[in-house]
């Protein structure tokens, strides 16, 4: 077994919304090319933690980070004020809770990240769009209507389109924020299969309210409660022999 590399690591990460401390001293290591899941009851701060990784909180006032999130291999601190959030978002992409395609064509949705980067070359765009749609397991369903509106797709297809959009720019990490909570079971299982395939080429961090989902697709699981990381370990261990009593109570459904 090869020693695993760490792709990102939080060091005593605190996060404040105004005077309210939402995350408390979070220390977690995200292994490269694996799936790391964050679980916990609603309002525990798991989404807040996820959104620190691409500096989404910078879009709104009164948000403040403390501590570090180190991005490897170059050891840069994602949340340092000197780090440009735009650079971070170009390297770490995100898939949201509700599918949020742009009201444009399927093609334009996938090409958007490249357009932002100034790519004009039509053949390169065509090639990237096709590859991303294939990687997101959507190509066969939309190949004859990629210039049709993205809104005409079903919810599950829209979410895979959003994954294709996130993939098109070859990100180092993809953040998934409860990507299946708005989808039916069939669409959900397609997304889960997709995530398992994607981990061969990209590091994945996923927030989920669905414990079974975390158990099914992740290699590591972090359990967060009231802004604190209660336990972080191999998924197998968390779900079979958690070290903390709180974790055990949560995964056995004693509270939720």
């Amino acid at each position, binding site marked *: 077994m090869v020693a695993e590399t760490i792709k990102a690591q939080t060091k005593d990460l605190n996060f404040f919304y105004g005077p309210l401390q939402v995350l408390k001293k979070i220390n977690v290591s995200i292994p490269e090319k694996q799936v790391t899941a964050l679980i916990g009851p609603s309002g525990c701060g798991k989404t807040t933690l996820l959104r620190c990784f691409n500096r989404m909180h910078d*879009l709104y006032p009164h948000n403040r980070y403390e501590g570090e999130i180190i991005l490897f291999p170059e050891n840069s601190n994602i949340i340092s004020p000197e780090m440009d959030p735009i650079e971070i978002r170009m390297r770490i*992409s*995100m898939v*949201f809770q509700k599918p949020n395609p*742009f*009201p444009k064509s399927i093609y334009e949705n996938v090409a958007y990240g490249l357009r*932002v980067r100034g790519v004009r070359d039509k053949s390169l765009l065509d090639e990237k769009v096709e590859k991303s749609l294939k990687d997101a397991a959507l190509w066969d369903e939309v190949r004859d209507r990629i210039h049709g509106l993205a*809104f005409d797709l079903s919810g599950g297809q829209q979410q895979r389109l959003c994954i294709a959009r*996130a993939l098109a*720019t070859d990100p180092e990490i993809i953040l998934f924020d409860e990507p299946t909570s708005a989808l039916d079971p069939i669409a959900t299982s397609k997304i889960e299969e997709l995530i398992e395939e994607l981990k061969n080429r990209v590091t994945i961090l996923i927030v989920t309210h669905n414990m079974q989902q975390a158990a099914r697709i992740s290699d590591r699981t972090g359990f967060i409660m009231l802004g604190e990381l209660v336990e972080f370990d191999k998924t197998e261990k968390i779900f079979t022999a958690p070290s903390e009593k709180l974790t055990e109570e949560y995964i056995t459904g004693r509270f939720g």
Partner: protein
Amino acid sequence: MEDLKKRIRANKLRNYLFLIIGLLATLVGLLLLCTLLIDLALDGASRLSMKFLLSFPSRFPEQAGILSAWVGSFLVLLVTALAAIPLGVATGIYLEEYGKKNWLTDIIEINIANLAGVPSIVYGLLALGLFVYFLKLGESILTGGLTLALLILPTVIMATREAIRAIPNSIREASYALGATKWQTVQWHIIPYSTGGILTGIIIGLSRAIGETAPIITVGALTFIAFLPSPPLTPEFPYFSFQWLMDPFTVMPIQMFNWVSRPQKEFQLNAAAAGLILMAMTLLMNGLAVYLRYKFRKRVKW
């Protein structure tokens, strides 16, 4: 059981009562508008002809026309649109997408809302001082257009903001999450998705501007004018001219006002005919606004 039935009957009676009141209230507005239109049409229809559209005003009512008035209205409105659209849309975008929410933007916001309620004559006085006396733009089409631009600026700004606010935040987040800057997000998403609402606001503003009389009189539009502004295209190099901007002018409502104040009955007919045309212009613009809103809604829905 009997009680319950009685109760239901009473409830239904009240329901019908409001149905009738509501219908009557709606009809009052509608009937008044129809009466107005029919009255104008009965008086003015006999004067409507190509000759009426293509003649200058005259001392003889049967020879008088509205050529200088509608050309004036058109050119003033053109200046108004060219000034108010970029200013208003840029302001709206800034306030919604860029401006930080603090006491300064709060004050700006309250002021813009207040500006929409300022009587138009006050804008006329402001324009007289600013454009005519201070900037020395004269009693010109440019002055008239800029005055009306000031007048409709709050409308354009507010329409822009409403339209932008209707765009769900998830769209902005999707764009930013891919590394877009604010301007890229505005350029590729905010502006395209709010175009329908913005256009509607602009047209509503312009259709208000076309009927404005007070501020235009205040800045010194003429009431009798028997020539057209200089042509924008010239036979000699450089083949275009902006002289028309500085020319004196009149507009439709002023022409009407002028005719209404004459004692002769025939001039009243001319006023009615001009009124019909002005109404037609306004209704046409409002119709266009409704159509655009419908068309863009169909293309972008959330």
